[in-house]
């Protein structure tokens, strides 16, 4: 473990816990204040994962469900970016897990009964580790929008769920990536549980033609910032003493 205490979370940069427009949150949000304390070794340490934990196709959602034998249906995309901390340092070796609906907006989950059919060649889950500079990349298909029971006619914008570890348990984060230009983002009660508009905008991945491959796939870039650690220089004693 290196560095000082974790930088306290800015709760205003996150969604509110209780939001009438996202009905399930009403009974699933604490009503008492959280107990805010400085981080301890429990939050400053965390599980580490290695390449031996992952399979060779785990990062390729187009092919991983069939073991590489078939391609999933949909618009082929590369989703890539960097995992950073609040000091702007890339976080190497951190686990990134993703899950998503298929091109028709249907999840391969026993609880999803949406009309759109399953794609026999698409599972909808992937994972990878960031490289030395914190970069990650997945191949996948662009997920479809889907309706969900909330208000009268709510639809989720196309999105990919992201789960991030960083280096410590206190950095744990789950979020969602949206796609540039999707008119459903502005109508989405889940995106709008975040009250700071600029924080919603940071979840919208721009089209990135520099990483698109001609006659093969488009690309979207999604950078993610996890909590940082305070510099420990002045914490206990000056360096070198």
């Amino acid at each position, binding site marked *: *473990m290196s560095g000082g205490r974790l930088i306290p979370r*800015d709760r205003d940069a*996150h969604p*509110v*816990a209780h*939001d009438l427009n*996202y009905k399930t*949150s009403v*009974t*699933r*949000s*604490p009503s*008492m204040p*959280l*107990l*805010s*304390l*400085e981080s*301890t*070794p*429990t*939050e400053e*340490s*965390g*599980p*580490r*994962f290695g390449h031996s*934990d*992952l399979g060779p196709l*785990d990062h390729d959602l187009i092919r*991983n*469900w069939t073991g590489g034998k078939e391609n999933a249906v949909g618009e082929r995309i590369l989703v890539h970016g960097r995992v950073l*901390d609040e*000091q*702007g340092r890339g976080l190497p070796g951190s686990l990134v*897990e993703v*899950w998503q609906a298929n091109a028709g907006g249907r999840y*391969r*989950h026993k*609880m*999803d009964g949406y009309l759109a059919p399953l794609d026999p060649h698409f*599972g909808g*889950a992937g994972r990878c580790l960031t490289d030395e500079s914190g970069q990650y990349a997945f191949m996948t298909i662009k997920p479809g929008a889907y309706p969900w029971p909330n208000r009268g006619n709510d639809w989720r914008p196309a999105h990919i*769920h992201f*789960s991030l570890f960083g280096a410590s*348990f*206190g950095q*744990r984060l*789950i*979020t*969602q990536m949206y796609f540039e230009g999707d008119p459903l983002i502005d109508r989405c009660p889940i995106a709008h549980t*975040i009250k*700071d508009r600029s*924080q919603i905008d*940071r*979840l919208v991945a721009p089209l990135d033609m520099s990483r698109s491959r001609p006659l093969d796939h488009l690309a979207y870039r999604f950078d*993610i*910032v*996890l909590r*940082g650690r305070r510099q420990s220089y002045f914490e206990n004693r000056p360096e070198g003493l």
Partner: protein
Amino acid sequence: MVQKLVTHSETASQTAGPYVHIGLMPTHAGNSSTFETELGVSPILGGAKGSPIEISGQVLDATGNPMLDAVIESWQADAQGLFPGQQGADRNVKGFCRFAIDPQTERFTLKTIKPGPVALPEGGEQSPHIALWIVARGINIGLSTRVYFEDADVDQDPVLRRVQPRERLQTLKAKPLGGGAYNFDVRLQGPNETVFLDM
């Protein structure tokens, strides 16, 4: 005018949603062939030192209904109070586990070893505890709490000392049932609401 302060603030959280299992626990979602190795299946390997324990309980919403779609992660020290990666830590303790709610029993179960007290860099120690992180549909940012043990010495723990009002302390203590079994229920809202942490 001043210089522009270049900062990178944390990316916003979003709910894990109802289908979180396909990504984090595909076997639970009926998709066992997604990955060759699922992560966080057990916090310990054979040969882990310490007393085996089994913590089980329910995750309840404000109406008292058990939530069947929650995913919980746990992180803990070994029997000596050392975290994986620290010098001298028990190599058979991975410390991390992921578990879901059994749809039949409506309960979660964590089988592990009892962690030791964790020394603090500024002196003193934390009582034995296991950190939990809970996500589900309707939870917009993962909820952190800790499992302490009612039958362990918890009085001097620096986190527990800060809990107000004091009656809420009991929401953080697993109740021994004998034979290494403990009950620990998590109540998201309402009477006996669990103390959630912002650390």
